[in-house]
């Protein structure tokens, strides 16, 4: 009992200073670290100008599914910025936000998008141009574990979609292709960023597959290593959905600032920051300004190829689903 009271008292002690000023917690996916480091102060300034109030934004980063689970277990997120629609659906199912959360913000609550793309070593020694090159015997591929990382799930689906497209919709051939791809992966990290460090810091693999935004950021961060961005001929549109975790925000009285924070991502200033971090945006003016950074690519969507996330969950991601048969029994 004693420790419980002590723990509760400590909890209050920790909670109080945080409540004294406007403070929200943005729980996000793994590779958005640098993005929100730039977004947060920009929003704080906008908010201060508009309302005269100070706001601090706390950040937590990890694999999208891991984060969703933590929120279900009580991580007090006010807003989520994820890379996976399903992970917000999980929160809705847990009663933390409305089931029709996609109506709360424009463009299906997705302020920006990206796609799985490649990053190769200096001067592209293996001549990697497209998905077909990744299943060659002499190529080692790095991407995270599709069971825990939303990022890798897009990679899996994009490879699958490419193979379907190439083989006129033959599912067996597509699965063989993905299996061959998995066989070329020397290590599956749990999150997108860990895969990046594996490729960039530990010099493992010939090609890293991750969001185009991450490939752009890494190429810049490791300019001395001369990594080259490669955009495949076909890829999958990856939405980056956002939502206010209404249950938590209501309790903490942060609904208004949380909503404004997410709306800021849609503003020209927000979209410009996003584009600077190599995310593709919808704002026409920003799009025109930054067109040079974003090569043309044929983008297919989850709905077109797979019939939506519910179907993907049931057929591909469920225990014993297609992903399991390809992933484990290699």
């Amino acid at each position, binding site marked *: 009992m004693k420790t419980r009271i002590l723990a509760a008292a400590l909890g209050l002690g920790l909670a109080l200073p945080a409540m004294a000023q406007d403070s929200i917690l943005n729980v996000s996916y793994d590779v958005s670290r640098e993005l929100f480091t730039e977004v947060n102060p920009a929003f704080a300034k906008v908010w201060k100008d508009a309302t005269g109030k100070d706001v601090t934004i706390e950040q937590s980063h990890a694999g999208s599914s891991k984060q969703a689970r933590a929120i279900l277990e009580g991580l007090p997120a006010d807003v989520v910025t994820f890379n996976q629609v399903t992970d917000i659906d999980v929160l809705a199912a847990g009663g933390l936000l409305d089931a029709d959360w996609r109506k709360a913000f424009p463009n299906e609550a997705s302020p920006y998008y990206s796609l799985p793309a490649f990053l190769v070593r200096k001067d592209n020694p293996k001549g990697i141009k497209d998905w077909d090159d990744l299943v060659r015997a002499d190529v080692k591929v790095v991407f995270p574990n599709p069971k825990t990382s939303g990022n890798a799930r897009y990679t899996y689906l994009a490879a699958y979609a490419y193979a379907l497209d190439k083989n006129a919709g033959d599912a067996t051939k597509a699965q063989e292709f993905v299996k061959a791809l998995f066989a070329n992966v020397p*290590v599956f990290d749990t999150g997108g960023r860990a895969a990046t460090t594996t490729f960039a810091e530990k010099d493992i693999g010939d090609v890293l597959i991750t969001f185009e935004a991450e490939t752009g950021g890494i190429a810049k961060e490791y300019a001395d290593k001369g990594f080259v961005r490669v955009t495949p001929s076909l890829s999958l549109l990856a939405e980056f959905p956002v939502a206010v975790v209404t249950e938590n925000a209501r309790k903490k009285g942060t609904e208004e600032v949380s909503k404004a924070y997410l709306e800021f991502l849609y503003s020209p200033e927000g979209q410009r920051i996003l584009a600077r971090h190599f995310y593709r945006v919808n704002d026409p003016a920003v799009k025109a300004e930054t067109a040079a950074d974003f090569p043309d690519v044929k983008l297919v969507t989850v709905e077109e190829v797979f019939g939506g996330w519910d179907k993907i969950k049931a057929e591909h991601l469920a225990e014993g689903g297609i992903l399991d048969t390809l992933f484990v029994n290699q």
Partner: protein
Amino acid sequence: MTASTPTASVIRPKRVLPGFGLTMGLTLTYVGIIILLPIIALVLKGAEVGPLRFLEIASAPRTLAALKLTISAAAMASVLCAVYGLLMAWVLVRYDFPGKRLLDALIDIPFALPTAVAGLTLSALFAGNGWYGAVLEPQGIKVVYTIWGVTIAMAFTSIPFVVRTVQPVLEDLDPQYEQAAATLGAFPFTAFRRIVFPAIFPAFVVGISLSFARSLGEFGAVVFIAGNLPMETEIASLLAVIRLEEYDYNGAAVIALTLLILALVLLAASNLLQARAMRYKGKRQ
């Protein structure tokens, strides 16, 4: 453990001393809240699935592979620790040389060093572009992301156990027996095998079993260096975490419970060994 009085008195059953109620109350409350309650939560979650499904999860190929990797890497790490520990204990007790005290103090570093730091450092050292990796990889020895990486991380974090259990016993052992044996013409190795080894054997085994138990449970150091290849370099506790991240709570609980049971069996065995070792020591005195 070392500061022993000549007569270890037998504790009498009568309660002359005060504080039984107080310490019993405190201990039970604390153990109940901090240790027992969380474990009960785990057992309940694991039991939720029923014995059949429990066995099914525990014996799924990926779980088995993870358990096998964890156990075999821990076994190899224990062998490494046994060899190194025996060498260190012997050298530290029997010989004098400059820097001996420093070396003695250094042995405990792996206990004091946070495991995450150990993992970060080892993975950087053994990576293909690290100090050790740059030497080893051209020879075709790959450590990072293989079972060797797991083994080395486990061995590093349990280095001190064997040294610290064997050392005091060796100190108590008078070298005159070895000298006598040498005078009688025995080869040094024979003297060691016949006289020293039987005396230190119980402590040696206790040290190895402690290393093994610690290696089975090691997480922080291993995850940095192991990689995540399912069926190949995925340790059991990491698999439990991955199951958790996949919202598979029952799966996570079952794997965690399996590890817990394994640890309990080891603990019981080690306590038994320790009791026997104590009895041996008692007889000698």
